């Protein structure tokens, strides 16, 4: 009779991620070497950091006791610019991205149109807002108009890509059913595709509205108008209480927009 194997007293959890031992060790070693190298590239000037702590504390104080009144004129102007920029650019972005989104859906558009629309989407998505804003400010001058163009351009890539994916994921049988009645291409889009993607399009537009407001607070730093410019000025003047007030306003508006847009989205879908 065979002697029973001693029951193992210890159990070690098998690794989840890199199952091959050699590879696992190599990857861990590589990560460690990288970390050491990366840490060395950071030069920390402790004296400067120490001096800055004082200023950092002043900023925390400014955040806790925000000053809305002294610069209220600047703040309200920046806010109005940001909000108007957000709304107009989202509307313009949606208007342009609907045809591009339809063109970029493989099941609706012929090959040349598909490639052209995909090209536009890739172009719009590959550069981020700040870089587009730098170029557009150089072309159109300072102010919210350049910001409007930046946000609209960035919205096009985002919305058309997601819309196109949504159209491609449509229920094919509905399209076939409408087509079987002898409907033209326009009628197919109108009666088979549009009802299926409309709730999603509304949701995406509201989500983009949310993103556009956040971005509108940033692109002002490079001169494209909005609350970001006001914030930049406040920090340059070392007015941390005004800067704190602006940040609190941004956070509050983002919260309101996010909650109301998620509420509307739930209601639409």
């Amino acid at each position, binding site marked *: 009779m065979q002697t029973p194997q001693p029951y193992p007293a210890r159990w070690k959890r098998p690794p*989840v*991620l890199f199952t091959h031992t050699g590879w696992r060790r190599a990857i861990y070693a590589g990560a460690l070497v*990288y970390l050491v190298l*990366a*840490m060395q*590239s*950071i*030069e*920390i*000037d402790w004296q*400067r*950091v120490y*001096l*800055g*702590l004082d*200023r*950092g504390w002043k*900023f925390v104080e400014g955040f806790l006791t925000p000053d809305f009144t002294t610069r209220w004129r600047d703040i309200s102007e920046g806010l*109005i*610019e940001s*909000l*108007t*920029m957000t*709304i*107009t650019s989202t*509307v313009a972005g949606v208007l342009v991205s609907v045809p591009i989104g339809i063109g970029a859906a493989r099941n609706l558009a012929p090959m040349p149109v598909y490639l052209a629309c995909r090209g536009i989407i890739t172009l719009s998505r*590959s*550069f*981020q807002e*700040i*870089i587009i804003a*730098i*170029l557009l400010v*150089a*072309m*159109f*001058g300072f*102010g*919210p*108009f350049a910001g*409007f163009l930046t946000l609209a351009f960035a919205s096009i890539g985002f919305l058309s890509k997601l819309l196109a994916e949504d159209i491609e994921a449509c229920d094919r049988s509905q399209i076939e059913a409408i087509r079987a009645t002898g409907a033209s291409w326009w009628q197919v889009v109108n009666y088979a595709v549009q009802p299926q993607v409309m709730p999603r399009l509304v949701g995406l537009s509201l989500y983009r509205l949310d993103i556009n407001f*956040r*971005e509108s*607070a*940033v692109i002002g*730093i*490079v001169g494209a108008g909005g609350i*970001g410019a006001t*914030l*930049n000025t406040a*920090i340059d003047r*070392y007015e941390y209480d005004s*800067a704190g007030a602006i*940040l609190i306003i*941004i*956070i509050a508006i*983002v*919260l309101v927009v996010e909650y109301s847009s998620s509420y509307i989205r739930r209601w639409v879908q």
Partner: protein
Amino acid sequence: MTNQPSTPVWQYRSSKQTLLGWLGWFLLVALTVFCWQLMNENTIWAFVSDAPDQAADIGGRMFPPAWGYIDQLWKPLWDTLNIATLGTLIGVAVAVPVAFLAANNTTPSRRFVRPLALLLIVTSRSINSLIWALLLVAVIGPGLLAGVIAIGLRSIGFIAKLLYEAIEEIDFSQVEAVRATGASGAQVIDYAIVPQILPAFWGISVFRWDINIRESTILGLVGAGGLGIQLSASLATLAWNQVAMIFVVILGTVIISEWVSARVRQAVI
């Protein structure tokens, strides 16, 4: 065939719904027009109509890009990668405990701790990393450290939000099973919750790393190190061919990081 007067014609919506729909559209259009006028009060249209000439001029100066300039870009590129990676690590290190505190089923106190954790997440999420960098450069001085911390602060909210949603969606029977063996709280987290959220965790982290690479390329515009410092120097001297070269490098980096992140997410999820 004629319509019988007695049978009502089929309508998609009742007349009240139709009216409300039109009213909604009308309000949207009115709001957009109003915002458009408010936004463009101060726009100087001469600059706008001038834009095609400006675009042609800048385009002419950008082409051909200053290929030789790449020699001076390797070091900033390395810095940019480090900012993104180290910043992501900081973000992950802080976000994981915050996510456990914020998730409905793991938080120690739903009334006190959870709202605090959610507030932290919202604050971190609503402020763009460029604004964090702007503040940190003023506080701890220009350099890589400000960039790393800015990226880290922005990443906390993103990672913690997606992670706590993943924690809230876990299968609770596994937690009960592990608890039934007499496991302590830490062991329950280790053996019942962590294995369930690990794929989501890797996916989220790599996704955020990819976004951070994009964002860290421009942090230098406010002095926080990386490619952006070269970009702002080239912009300030109007050396558009160098700017074009930097754009090429940024585009290459973004494409590679997106590819890496897509591969890793495919492998993990």
